[in-house]
């Protein structure tokens, strides 16, 4: 086999692999995306809101669901409430995630210890935008 034939075979193989990879990626399921509502109650004794930022992981169902924050909108303050909307990608538990689900800052919220002045946010999945 001459060198041109070997080169042609390599290029063909590379082409076929590329096409196959692209085809697989097109069919592979991507991470579901969700919209979240994050809410803090601010009172005289709870004046220090615990921040939720891009990249943070939130937990549901004792850690069976894990959602990574991808986008957080500016906060809105109404009287004693601070509200934010956020978008997140489901990293774990794509079958378990559902609208209305409560999410927490830690896997087991019963193990969470905070300063008494901390306003721990209430976080809820309001919409599943992509399955």
């Amino acid at each position, binding site marked *: 086999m001459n060198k041109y034939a070997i080169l042609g075979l390599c290029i063909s193989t590379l082409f076929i692999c590329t096409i196959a990879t692209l085809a697989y990626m097109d069919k592979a399921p991507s991470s579901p995306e969700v919209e979240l509502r994050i809410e803090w109650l601010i*009172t*005289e*004794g*709870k*004046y*220090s809101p*615990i*921040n939720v930022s891009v990249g943070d992981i939130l937990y549901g169902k004792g850690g069976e669901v894990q959602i990574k924050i991808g986008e957080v909108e500016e906060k809105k303050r109404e009287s004693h409430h601070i509200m934010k909307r956020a978008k997140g990608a489901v990293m774990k538990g794509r079958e378990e995630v559902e609208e209305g689900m409560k999410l927490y*800052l*830690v896997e087991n*919220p*019963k*193990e*969470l*210890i*905070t*300063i*008494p*002045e*901390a306003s721990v946010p209430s976080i809820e999945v309001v919409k599943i935008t992509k399955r």
Partner: protein
Amino acid sequence: MKMKNPMSIFFVLVIIASALMTPALNAESNETLIIGFKDEIPGWIRNDVLDVNKDLKCVLVKADAGRILKTGTNVRYVEKNKLVHALYVPNDSFYEKQWNLKRINMEKAWNLEKGSENVTLAILDTGINYQHEDLPYISGFDFVNNDSDPMDDNGHGTAVAGVAAAAIDNGKGIAGIANVSILALKVLNESGLGTTWNVSKAITYAANHSADVISMSFGGDRSGIMKDACSYAWNKSAILFAASGNENSSVIYPAAYTSVVAVGATDKSDEKANYSNFGPELEIVAPGNSIPTTSLDGYTYFSGTSASTPHASAVAALIKSRYPQLSNEDIRERLRNTAVDLGKEGKDDYYGYGLVNAYAALKSIFDTGSGTYPSIFGTHNGTITPNVTITVQKIYTYPCVGTGGHTEYVKIWNDSWNITATWEGYQSDWRNITLPEFELVRGETYNYTIQTGSYPQIIHKHTANTTRGAITCTSFVDANGKTHNNWIPAIRLL
């Protein structure tokens, strides 16, 4: 004018004469005497009076005026006009803004104790800014990042540390309550969050490093491991304090465990802070609104039960500094017994035993401890010889279970001085008789007469030695008229 009792006249004149003949007394009393009356101040005394307090029905007279004084059964007490210790006002630049310290009587307390470096106060929190100009040398550990650098990355722990232990009298910033050794244990991250696992590790670490007091301005849900950790530390002689929580709801954990003193918050009017959690577990309260303290980059105001907790824990550290032999249970009982009762009479769900009173908690107490059966009421006579100087404001008599067992009349005296008081019935602080503040001086012997009602506890000894001195029985005449010479009343002078 009422008919005078010649013996009473003689008795009071002897007291005045004795006072006048005692050179030490004259030097100490600034040459004046105070005479208190049962009823109105009699008119015949007017010419000899330097000053009058009509509300307290007493007069101030020159000591040398005593030779012309006439008196009668209306006289309640004659005592020297003692020099009163000046309040200790530190020179820290923001001290005037520290209203909280006056509410817990720190200016008088600092005259007794400012803290010992032999006492360790462990602060479990977000760490402490140990480079702050107003905070002392601090050792510690970071359980969040698992290293030996407990630097604060939130500010909460630095605020707690400032309330408890900022340098007193350094001309800068604020005054802390107790200048003791600080062990900073970082258990909360930069957001103020932590886990029961790390908290429990830090509690056991503190106990294993001989922490005398553990201060925890945080909380969460009930946790088995945290409960075990608190019991472990308590059993290793540490006294633990924790914030009751800021939800105006039930007390959070670890404060709600029996091995922990739950601390609630009060405002500038000594009212419950409206966010402060409450319930049967609440044990004591301390100021919690707008408390000046240290921050990551200077000074700030700090509010919440987080701010109240270091008030109580630091006062416990002062007690341990002054009385190293006291156990954690002793210190806890002392804090309870000396708190200023707020809200409903006695312990209640909103204030616990009341507001921390540092001065009262640091004063020496003459305490015989409880007694034994048999018991009967009657009149006790005997002597008290304290081995430390004791400032007294109240007498408490241990009662037998289910009885009043209170003191109905008390008189304490020596050759130059006497004081008496009578029970005022089942109202307000009825288990104690409150007296004008006086001192029992170390090494001197004082006589006492104590008439008890209902069934008080009795110590069946002729002489009982206590940690603060000795008490003896000269005679006890019981309610049946029988005389005993070895029945001492079980009392506490505080």
